[in-house]
């Protein structure tokens, strides 16, 4: 079943010079899928994610998440929708500095008025899964970047959303912390069947996805699926990126064996 469908989506930024960020995008994500979006800087991948995540409004086209068009909802319906059906992970974590790690994690439940007992139970459960149980009472400035991103992921998952949207979640992390984060996302996708949409420019991060969509100049460019081997998938991603241009100097094309 399709959880997310995007039909002929377009976005034009008006201003002194109008700029067409997205042109006629069609996209379908099935339930339980883990999809990556890649492309060079300025290709429109974050814009696409913002359209899907209800942060920004499309100029044309339609977005449906679990059958609902979020742009047809009233303000408060949209709030409820975000609170129950969506989870967000950002490059800059976007944790609230006034709250402790645990308080940040349970925030979506607080907003939804869940009982404190249930809140604590779920917080412990998710903290255990993400390996942040020991830092639950710390404040956000006392933890490392990797821990902050895991906290943000815990916050995005605690209310068991239908769709998790991640914008460069490994962008601020070193390779080891990035791997931890991606493994967590992969595991949650695998075990809980949470649908995930990930924007990244890191081929290593993208290789954890089931499928990667490439965007160039606001248009769909290509799409590749993960086969049996993650290593081979990684190589194909790199090949495609260098083919898209801009990265020839960084990666010399290597033939797959």
């Amino acid at each position, binding site marked *: 079943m399709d959880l997310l469908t995007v039909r002929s989506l377009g976005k034009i930024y008006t201003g002194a010079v109008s700029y067409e960020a997205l042109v006629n995008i069609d996209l379908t994500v099935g339930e339980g899928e883990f999809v990556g979006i890649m492309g060079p800087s300025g290709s429109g991948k974050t814009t696409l994610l*913002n359209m899907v*995540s*209800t*942060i*920004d*409004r499309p100029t044309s086209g339609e977005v449906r998440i679990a059958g609902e068009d979020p742009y047809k909802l009233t*303000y*408060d319906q949209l*709030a*409820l*929708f*975000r*609170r*129950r059906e*969506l989870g*967000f992970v950002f490059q800059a974590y*976007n944790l*609230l*500095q*006034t*709250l402790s790690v645990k*308080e940040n994690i*349970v*925030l*979506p439940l*607080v*907003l*939804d*008025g869940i009982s*404190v007992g249930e*809140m604590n139970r779920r917080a412990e459960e998710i903290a255990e899964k993400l390996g942040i149980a020991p830092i639950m009472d710390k*404040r956000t400035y006392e933890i490392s970047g990797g821990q902050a991103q895991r906290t943000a992921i815990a*916050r995005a998952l605690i209310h068991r959303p239908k769709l998790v949207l991640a914008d460069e979640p490994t962008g601020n992390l070193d390779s080891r912390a990035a791997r931890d984060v991606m493994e967590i996302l992969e595991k949650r996708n695998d075990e809980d069947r949470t649908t995930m949409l990930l924007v990244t420019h890191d081929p290593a991060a993208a290789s954890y996805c089931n499928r990667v969509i490439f965007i160039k100049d606001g248009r769909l460019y290509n799409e590749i699926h993960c086969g049996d081997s993650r290593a081979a998938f990684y190589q194909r991603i790199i090949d495609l990126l260098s083919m898209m241009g801009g990265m020839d100097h960084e990666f010399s094309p290597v033939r797959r064996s």
Partner: protein
Amino acid sequence: MNFRQFAVHNVLRNKRIYMAHFLSSAFSVMIFFTYALLLFHPDLQGELVSSSGTLSRLGTIGMQVSEVIIFVFSFFFLLYSVGAFLKLRKKEFGILILLGMSRNQLNRMLFVENAWIGFAALAFGIGIGLIFSKLILLASARLLSIQEGLRFYVPLKAVLLTAIAFGVLFLLIASLTSIMAGKERVAELIRSEDKPKPEPAASAGLSVLAVLLLVAGYVIVFDFAINRRHTSFQQLLGGVVLAIAGTYLLFTQTSVYLLRALRGSKLFLRRTNLLTISELTYRMKDNAATFFIVAVVSAVAFTGIGTTLALGDPGLASMVNPYAYSYSAGEDQSFGAQQVKKIGDELTAAGYSYKAHAMLPLSTEGGYTVVRLSEYNQLAADLGYRAETLGGDDEMFLTPSYVWQKEDMDQAGYPPGPVELIIGNQKASPHFVKYAPRIVLPDIGYAGTAVITDRLFDKLKQGYADPLYKTYLFTVPDWHKAVGVSRELMESINNDGQNGDYLRSLSLEWLSSKQKNGILFIVSGLVGIVFFTFAASTIYFRLYADMDRDEKQYGMIAKVGLSGKELSRIMTRQLFLMFFVPLAMAFVHSTVAFVALQRLVGYSILANSLKIFGAFAAIQLAYFLVARWRTVEHLKRKIS
């Protein structure tokens, strides 16, 4: 953690951001409470303890009016403070909305937060106000010259009024914040922090217009003062409006324009100038509105305080009538002389030295009042003025008896040619030879006072059929201290119902005008302080709003290589301009106002004006030094 706890945590752990808002609120409460304290003071009810009833009514009305002014003003001030504070938290709101916070919940959170801050500010403001109320009562009794002092009392009514008024105010502001938080889109909210700002633009035409408007405003105000168009308030208002408009354009356009012009010059590329000037250009645009408010509000405060100080000056009282006592003797001349002796004895007994001389004015049919030259010279000597001479019976000189008359005569001079003086069957036509621009003979001759030779006077006097009334004028060097003896003298002479005589005391008149103006002084002083605090807090909010950006900016530059000394120099310059440019503008505005005021009063208000400027410049300097020290330390710590 439930929702209420969440909102409370938000406040308690965001202390730094909330502090400025909280302190402004508490300060407003305290000022309002102080007013209420005086307003409800049992000794200030109905009659002021030591003087007349009309004054106390006036005072009470003044207090009530300014209580309302403070309240209205606090409302806008706190609304501004809340607005600045919400702006800082845009990103936080963005995250919360993204996590699914409904509008209701956001409103509730803001409401709970503001209600908490308001409640705490109320308690804190009243608490501080109570502690200092004793001090305030002492100080105001001194200012009001109530000699016994005001009693300390438990100000239940004042507490109640403050609690209710500000309770309502804070609830109102709390409910307005949710509207102010606005309907900006989530994307805008989240991006608000790292959105690059466009380069500020300014037009040359508007920059010139700013200067023209200022000049025009000043010219109109001066014209008002110099040509004494006292009645044309529209003119004064017009001048003020032009000056205010000019100030606005000056900050929004001219300053940016000049800074941009600097960019092209060689100076721009010298050492840290590049940073200072480019930062300033951006800041100027952001700060223009702040600067404008601060400059205008401070100018209003200075001018208000300056005017009241001028009104309370002993110079104003003695300008009208320079004599400590004026005793108008009745018909019975010997009884009058007796009374004069009695006044003299009492003054001597009380330890005051005095000089007393009589004046016998005669009014002529032509309108002029004539006085003997010898009497004039005696009195002039008492006051320390030089003696005048006349060449003969056909000469006389003109002298004013009232302040308004002096102003007219200062401009018109004495009329030329012979003037006919007629009393009964006696006639003479001497001519004016000079004008003595000092009030030596007060409160006689509405049409003007002419001083003539003793011989001519005696001749004219023969035509005078009505009884003669002498006035004895006393000069006492320490007149303003002689309040007690004056009150006794007034009591015994004016209430004995004998002979129709009358005594006027300068010290009591001054006291009563001081009483009136003392209340005015407290009123304008406190309003001035509130205004000035508002201005200072406005600057603080601006600094605070820029703090994060500064941290990033200088963090970046520090990596390129910027020594602590250079950082401190850049910040010092920027802050110096932020603190003193609007203040300087306010000084210029109020100087114009004071110069205009000086034209209206006869004694110098320079000392008072300088005192006001000095005091506020000192406060601002202290404030600047603290802010600079805090900012530089903060940045250094963040960068290293």
